[in-house]
């Protein structure tokens, strides 16, 4: 790059090179000084400047761009890995400090700039010599900043100013040259490293007296003075929104006075006052009268035992005064009782909407699902509240037909149908459909979309817990639509799983099942039921390897044309499966696994092909005994070794039933 004027800070150069290449090309022939003048007299894109000074480096962060100025290449080796995006400027000798300051000065000299934040800080190090070197660098840099600001004919515009400095006269001088029209936040902090601490330079009390008289101070909304404790009268802060200070000592009477003043300050939000002297509540005033003194009361929501709430008259807010050993805080809090859904501001409760949110939540909890869904329709604010609340969903059954969909929400049936379809003759159907709600779409309305919008409402709320979700369709095409739509609902949930205890699916294709099952919470899902004449051959491994299968307790699979390995069933409590064929050796394997299962209760296995069992052979190989005469002849018993329990095994031609007794 042939454009490299020596007096242009890298950040400006980079900004222009990266952001405004056309401009660079157009001024290639201009002299460097002219270019700088142009930059200085125009708005530059600085919003935040953070300076951190160390013993052999200066970090300057311009907006999001981090620049390192150092005089040792070794820093790149030592620290370069931390910030890959930083610009690095290495200059031999002390030139890096000047270079860093020049870069910052470009922003400070510009009258057009309004900085959002300007922060000056330093990095004290453990090593004594490094600390001293850092202090020297800081002195150099801060003094240059002060001289620049003091000698400029205008006050620099910045909103938040933060400085880590013990030289209070310098801080005052800098503050006086910041624009009172823009400054809102002011932070001063001192410098320490463990017990090492720089003493305050100047007469702290006198400087602070001058500081609070400046026009800048009266513009401030946020003040933080975390410094060697300085005694500043608390009334100097009562016009702030927030403040945090450290003082030598404070009395209860001062706290009460401050609280009473802050009660009348509508802008006030919070404050924290740290003291060097520890409160002795017992000596200052008998503690049990503290509430009376503060005219407050203990609130159950406050964890601190020394927190008292004082109501701000005619508002929904309170001041919470918290007393600690070496500090106290005053926070403005919203009264819980007045956490309203509506915008009413007076204290009287005229409508349900004026009730506190948590109260309405309890009322909604007491209602049944149907009422909860009706309440969603009552007002938007109620709907917003209900949508974040656990609703009383117990079961959802989806029954897809070619021209309509039945959905059962708990005991409430809803039929979604097209506007052209004749009414469903409910009377011809099972009595459970007797009170079905019919939702007929207006012309152009999408009944499928409507049905799944209601389903999505139920499924998307992560707090809902379902006892059962059943999906079935007696029409293959309608079934495919249902599974596709459900998959579209569930996919955006990502890793969030649906909490359902029992999942029943009538599927015609393996992928249909596998599009839903992974979205169900493993472990919470106790029971899986799959039916219909489906070939899971390609998907069986996926199914039995899934966490949902492994953590399930009950499985029922009807008319599944897929051989399931016996090993994949023995962890279950109950199972009922149809498999292609089962041999006596499989029964032996099954018996050996089931007798050691801690949860097994019963199972039944049907084979739809293969040879019928020879009961005598089964009895012999499995070591089964004939039961007493009142039991059926096909019932055999196996005594579990070292246990009182037995397995009752019923064997028929193509059917085996085993129960632990």
């Amino acid at each position, binding site marked *: 790059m042939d454009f490299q004027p020596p007096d242009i800070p890298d950040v400006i150069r980079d900004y222009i090179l990266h952001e405004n290449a056309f401009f660079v090309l157009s001024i290639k022939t201009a002299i460097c000084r002219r270019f700088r003048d142009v930059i200085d007299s125009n708005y530059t894109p600085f919003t935040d400047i953070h300076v951190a000074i160390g013993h052999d480096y200066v970090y300057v962060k311009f907006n999001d761009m981090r620049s390192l100025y150092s005089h040792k290449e070794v820093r790149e080796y030592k620290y370069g890995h931390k910030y890959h995006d930083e610009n690095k400027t290495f200059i031999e000798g002390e030139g890096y400090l000047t270079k860093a300051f020049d870069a910052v000065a470009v922003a400070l000299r510009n009258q057009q700039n309004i900085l959002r934040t300007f922060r000056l800080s330093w990095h004290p190090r453990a090593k004594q010599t490094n600390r001293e070197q850092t202090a020297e660098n800081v002195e150099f840099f801060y003094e240059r900043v002060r001289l620049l600001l003091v000698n400029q004919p205008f006050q620099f515009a910045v909103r938040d100013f933060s400085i880590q400095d013990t030289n209070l006269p310098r801080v005052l001088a800098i503050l006086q040259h910041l624009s009172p029209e823009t400054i809102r936040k002011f932070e001063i902090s001192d410098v320490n490293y463990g017990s090492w601490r720089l003493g305050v330079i100047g007469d702290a009390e006198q400087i602070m007296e001058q500081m609070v008289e400046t026009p800048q101070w009266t513009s401030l909304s946020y003040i933080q003075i975390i410094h060697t404790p300085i005694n500043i009268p608390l009334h100097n802060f009562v016009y702030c929104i927030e403040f945090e200070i450290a003082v030598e000592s404070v009395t209860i009477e001062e706290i009460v006075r401050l609280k009473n003043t802050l009660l009348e300050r509508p802008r006030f939000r919070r404050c924290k006052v740290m003291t060097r002297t520890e409160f002795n509540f017992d000596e200052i005033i008998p503690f049990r009268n503290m509430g009376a003194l503060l005219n407050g009361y203990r609130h*159950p929501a406050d964890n601190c035992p020394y927190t008292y709430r004082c109501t701000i008259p005619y508002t929904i807010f309170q001041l919470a005064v918290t007393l600690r050993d070496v500090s106290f805080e005053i926070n403005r809090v919203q009264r819980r009782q007045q956490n309203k859904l509506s915008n009413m501001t007076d204290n009287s409760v005229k409508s349900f909407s004026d009730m506190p949110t948590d109260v309405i939540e309890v009322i909604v909890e007491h209602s049944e699902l149907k009422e909860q869904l009706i309440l969603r329709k009552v007002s938007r604010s109620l709907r917003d509240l209900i949508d974040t609340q656990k609703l009383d969903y117990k079961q959802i059954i989806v029954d897809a037909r070619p021209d309509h969909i039945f959905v059962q929400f708990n005991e409430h049936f809803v039929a979604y149908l097209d506007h052209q379809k004749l009414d469903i003759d409910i009377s011809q159907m099972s009595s459970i459909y007797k009170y079905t709600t019919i939702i007929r779409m207006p012309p152009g309305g999408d009944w499928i979309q409507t049905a799944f919008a209601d389903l999505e409402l139920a499924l998307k709320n992560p707090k809902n817990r379902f006892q059962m979700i059943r999906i079935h369709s007696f029409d293959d095409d309608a079934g495919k639509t249902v599974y596709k739509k459900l998959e579209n609902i569930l996919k955006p949930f990502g890793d969030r799983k649906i909490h359902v205890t029992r999942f029943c699916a009538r599927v015609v294709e393996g992928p249909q099942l596998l599009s839903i099952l992974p979205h169900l919470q493993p472990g919470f899902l106790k029971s899986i039921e799959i039916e219909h004449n489906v070939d899971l051959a390609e998907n069986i491994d996926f199914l039995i390897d899934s966490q949902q299968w492994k953590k399930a307790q009950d499985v029922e699979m009807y008319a599944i044309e897929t051989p399931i390995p016996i090993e994949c069933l023995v962890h279950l409590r109950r199972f009922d499966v149809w498999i292609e064929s089962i041999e006596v050796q499989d029964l032996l394997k099954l018996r050996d696994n089931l007798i050691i299962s801690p949860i097994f209760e019963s199972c039944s296995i049907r084979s739809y092909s293969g040879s019928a069992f020879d009961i005598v052979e089964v009895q012999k190989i499995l070591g089964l005994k004939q039961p007493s005469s009142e039991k059926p002849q096909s019932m055999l018993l196996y005594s579990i070794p070292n246990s009182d329990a037995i397995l009752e095994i019923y064997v028929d031609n193509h059917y085996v039933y085993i129960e632990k007794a």
Partner: protein
Amino acid sequence: MSCEEPTTSPTPENNITVVSSDGKEFLLDLKLTEQSETLARLISNFEYDRTDVKKDPVPLGNITSAQMQKIIEWLQHHRYYPKWEQNDIHYSTSFTFETWVEEYLNIPNNEMFELLNAANYLNIPRLFSTICRIMASRITGKSAEQIRTVLNIKTDVKNDVYTGIPIQEDSSSSEDGMSEISLSPSPPPI
């Protein structure tokens, strides 16, 4: 559930004074305050259960004298009831109430709301839960429009996008509409 209510008069040793927002003072037996978690905690913190502690009046800035009167009536009626259990299934789900409770809460809705607010503020769980159940029972079987009337709620939902049925006068479509399932009439009891 009903309990015998022996008459006891509070003595200076076993009572505190609470002051309602309109400045009226009520002498309250400490035994009654056990039903209110807020008052019980306050008494514990201030050690008002000790006889040698001077008991300053407790200001209840959020409760009017009428509400306090009503609450004391509740506290006295339930003075000898067993301690409230949060997970009492009977209380949490049933919509049947004692005759006394039905008469006690046979009040206009706005008074009910204020009483509920007061019960929440004083943290009287039995009263709070009972009013919540009463409120839930009052909306059971009602349509959205009826609920708005009963609970005095002004709707901000204008229409129903799926059915096109206007909830109020506005029938234009809205993407924020809600399904008609919530408008269905309640099935008669089987």
